[in-house]
């Protein structure tokens, strides 16, 4: 089992270029066991790229990634990770909700075997947790956007992971189910699960998160308590500020001052 004092996810000096353009420039991020970290930033700031890179879905040009202490290249314990992507090809249809969710057990399944009872139970539990029990046999494409998002969350939960990596998990989910998902996440966190949550806005998950890392233009501009962030945000005139990409460069000095010198030179 996991060493509770360990770091479950660590990236250092991560540099990623996509199509020749730098998207991440020397990013460092760490999630300790049992910790819930928010990853914030505007559109194009590199949040999803960072998440996809630490999971090995995108190659990086420089830097290191370690998952549960192992270098990414040697990491094999994938059942410990539950990933909720921002978009999924699984939503095109042709699959039942329970088939999509069952894929979340794959890291634990052996080849050429039928699904053991424990896996079926985990799938059923995950579907019930996100409130899709009545839709479990529906085609995933027939669901609303919010329901599809909940199905993807159920898929990650089905694997009973130690680290959840959630890319905007509650976008498109109605308020009632945002609260439901927040409760589910709270339960998992109190049971010792760690989480890295990409968010556009903190929203109902705010009270659950221990720390926030803010990306802007491919760099970490804040790494610390959420409370401090709120203060910065207010002074920066709200969330809009973070939406500016490279075009906002003239504000750079300003931002550096406001964020307490967290911006790299």
């Amino acid at each position: 089992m996991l060493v509770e004092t360990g770091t479950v996810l660590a990236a250092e000096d991560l540099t990623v270029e996509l199509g020749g353009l730098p998207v991440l420039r020397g990013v460092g991020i760490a999630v300790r066991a049992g910790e819930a970290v928010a990853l914030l930033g505007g559109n194009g700031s590199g949040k999803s790229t960072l998440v996809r890179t630490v999971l090995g879905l995108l190659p990086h040009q420089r830097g290191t990634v370690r998952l549960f202490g192992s270098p990414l290249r040697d990491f094999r314990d994938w059942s410990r990770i539950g990933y909720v992507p921002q978009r999924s090809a699984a939503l095109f249809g042709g699959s039942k909700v329970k088939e999509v969710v069952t894929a979340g057990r794959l890291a634990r399944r052996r080849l050429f075997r039928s699904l053991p009872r424990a896996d079926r139970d985990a799938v059923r539990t995950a579907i019930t947790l996100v409130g899709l029990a009545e839709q479990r046999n529906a085609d995933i494409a027939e669901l609303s956007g919010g329901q599809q998002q909940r199905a993807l969350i159920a898929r990650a939960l089905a694997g009973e992971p130690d680290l959840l990596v959630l890319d905007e998990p509650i976008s498109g989910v109605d308020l009632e189910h945002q609260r439901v998902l927040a409760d589910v996440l709270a339960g998992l966190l109190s049971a010792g699960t760690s989480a890295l949550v990409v968010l556009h806005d903190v929203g109902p998950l705010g009270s659950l998160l221990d720390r926030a890392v803010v990306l802007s233009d491919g760099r970490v501009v804040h790494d610390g308590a959420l409370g401090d962030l709120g203060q910065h945000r207010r002074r920066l005139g709200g969330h809009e500020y973070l939406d500016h990409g490279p075009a906002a460069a003239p504000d750079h000095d300003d931002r550096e001052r406001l964020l307490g010198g967290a911006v790299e030179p």
Partner: protein
Amino acid sequence: MIEILSYPFMQRALIAALLTGLIAPAIGTYVVQRRLSLLGDGLGHVALAGVGLALLTGTAPIPIAVVACIAGAVVVEILRQRGKASGDVGLAVLFYGGLAAGVFLSGISGVGAAGLTQYLFGSLTTVTPNDLTLIALLAVVILVITLGLAPQLYAVSTDEEFARTQGLRVRLYHITVVSLAAVTVALAMRTVGLLLVSALMVVPVAAARNLVRGFTSGLGCAIAIGVATAVGGAAASFYINAAPGAFIVLLAIGFFVLSWPLSYLVRRRRAAAVLPELVDDDELVAAHMVTESHPHRHAPGCGHPAVQHGDHTDFIHEGHRHAAHADHYDEH
């Protein structure tokens, strides 16, 4: 039916058709899921190079075509994984190169391009016992993998990135799928022919998607349609003296065309099962039936279909309708 079973060549033809009907939709399901529906068509071109080589060297065509096809499929997959813009052109060069090489090699072998016709359109009735043994062996391999590894192949074909975060060796599975598709194409050149095999990989899958819901049911239904059309077409073409390959594919397309109105009916029936008959009966309302303990709160987008009912909204809940009334829900 008894009459045609008395001819050994028809026995072999029917068994070969049965095996093709089993394996083509089984592997086709994954090929379609990956949006590579035309892969089989391209591989058919490559298989012709193998046939040409076999004619030139005087060896059995199926084994050489299998090898050529697998090699072509692996090249296709590598080009695709590199994701280069030149990959598309690379595919075209590979496919037409295969076709040209096949025609060229058969020409210098003395057989001539006409000798390729039976492979282009199939020749079920000339399947030899040796052909049949090879087809049966490879069909078993294909079925064991496509059904035994269904959860893994489904995941990599549907959502490659998520499959990767489950630790699946995605590239290896992709190579497996295209290689099995290649084997299927090469085997099918004796049954429905290289030009038509792709149809048997795609059309039953498309028809099945109209008829049933879910991936696993779709796989089973596609195989059933494949077997029915392949065996039915092979048997029927014996009586009406038609080209079996073409007849099998036309039958499959017939299934597909019929599946459209059928899917409409199936969906309506499902909808009817969800939406009970909307009796606009005041007595029912007047009776004021309160639902049992109901912790769920209905709201727009809560997952239960909303129906306008007079001056308020009902939510369809497990076959009956709930309407909010003070602190509880009424049955409407």
